[in-house]
């Protein structure tokens, strides 16, 4: 089984978010970048397939050279090789199109991604990719098994879960549940040493254009100070008369 895991390079969840150039660019100054947390769940699931059922695992990122440490971390966790598509990922559709070229050329059976990235939270790339390469697609996946070419998966729905059956080739957009958080891998020293020797191939953009562009960023308006009350009568009064939510 050939597995491709899509990796986003995102600010650590505790990062302060700031912008530069008149609020048109994200300020990466002092920001720690990590493997997108949702992708980590899918990467760990790929490792499980590699170890239990036999699979090769390639990781891919659409991004500029600054994302390579994140790909090396994925290699240290156990991926066999990595691909970086050398383009600034300004738009989800652009990323999906670049990934589609990699998938078509690579002959993958399973593409695993996180359901969204922790920066733009767009939840668009996996579904677009599946449509572009005409693979089956399960979004918000919280469990999956592969038996031959048959796939059984569980996805989260509003208020519950749905079990589905489908077949390879497939794109899976995973989240917590596809593996448990306690099972996430942390690179060990041997993995880090081995990762240095694993191939990280850089391919140039296939020349697709973006369909959206960020004109500017803004932060939410500063919040007023919390109103502290010392009894529930006052709280009920405020929620009813001021906030009008009860």
């Amino acid at each position, binding site marked *: 089984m050939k597995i491709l895991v899509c990796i986003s390079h995102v600010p650590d969840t505790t990062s302060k978010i700031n912008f530069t150039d008149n609020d048109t660019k994200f300020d990466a100054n002092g920001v720690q970048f990590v493997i997108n947390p949702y992708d980590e769940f899918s990467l760990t699931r790929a490792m499980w397939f590699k170890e239990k059922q036999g699979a090769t695992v390639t990781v891919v990122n659409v991004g500029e050279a600054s994302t390579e440490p994140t790909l090396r971390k994925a290699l240290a966790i156990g991926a066999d090789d990595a691909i970086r598509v050398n383009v600034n990922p300004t738009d989800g559709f652009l990323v999906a199109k670049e990934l589609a070229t990699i998938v078509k050329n690579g002959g993958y059976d399973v593409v695993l991604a996180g359901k969204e990235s*922790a920066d733009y939270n767009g939840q668009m790339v996996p579904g677009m990719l599946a449509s572009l390469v005409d693979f089956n697609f399960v979004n918000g996946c919280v469990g999956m098994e592969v038996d031959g070419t048959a796939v059984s998966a569980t996805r989260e729905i*509003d208020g519950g879960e749905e079990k589905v059956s489908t077949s390879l080739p497939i794109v899976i957009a995973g989240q917590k549940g596809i593996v448990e958080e306690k099972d996430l891998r942390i690179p060990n020293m041997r993995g880090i040493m081995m990762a240095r020797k694993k191939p990280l191939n850089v391919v140039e953009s296939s020349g697709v254009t973006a369909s959206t562009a960020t004109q500017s960023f803004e932060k939410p308006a500063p*919040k007023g100070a919390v109103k502290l009350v010392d009894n529930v009568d006052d709280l009920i009064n405020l929620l009813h008369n001021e906030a009008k939510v*009860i």
Partner: protein
Amino acid sequence: MSVLVFADSSEGKFKKTAFEVVSYGKKVAEELGTNLVALTINGGDASELYAFGAEKVLEVKNDLSTFNAKAYASIINQAAEAQSANVVVIDSSVDGLYVAPMVAVAMNAGYASNVVALPSSTAPFTVKRKAFSNKAFSNTIVSTDKKVIGVAKNSYGAHENAVAGSAETFSANVPEMGVTSESVDKATGVITIADADIVVSAGRGLKGPENWGMVEELASVLGAATACSKPVSDLGWRPHSEHVGQTGKPVASNLYIAIGISGAIQHLAGINASKVKVVINTDPEAPFFKAADYGIVGDAFEFVPQLVEKLKAFKQA
């Protein structure tokens, strides 16, 4: 040209988000000087959509018993083609987020998800979207001729705007679906976090799962869903489906009540989209107080039972 909205439904009834996207789509259609068409698939009574501005409702009736993303995406695309729709509006329910990217590819349309406001401009078409886990917004230009807009739940709201609408049957081809539903396991008789206007959430401050009775009672009085912080679901006190936060469920409710939750940044990322936040915590330094609108510095075991009793009296008054 027209604006098409997909009005999602469940078991023959429109979801609340259907009225939100129809309200949103109506305004966009007005700004573009065109008409609004709503598409339903085995949906509810079309006249419910006229009330929010849908002049025309295309009703697809078929034997799809459950949602299927590929089939739905194909039907939405066929309707968009039939109506020459350049803008398609879809909600941000779990199913909406599943189907919208597939619609965008089928239409070769730029897609903006998590949109929180009407376009600030229609030429260029510019929308405000949530980004960085609700810590910022991106004003995004969608530069393609065709556009798919995903409206974030509870951000624009449902606005009555009654029109004399009409419904017609729309015949669409259903493609090979690829993914087959085997079973659905859905909580019945409880309000889910996705549907709730009010969410009552509790954390480790409750000391143990045996103390959740008062949280459930408070939720019951308010008609709210129950939720919890990540440590609580990790400890197994509450199911993972109730975990709210960055890697758990997002909450965009009108009222979020946090009891005994300190307010880790990952938790706040999950609830930032909620409109009014109330915190009850013994620790006055808890970071959640900085994010909250109203707070009680005090013991949940003292204040929550009082709140339940007083709210019962308030509701009866």
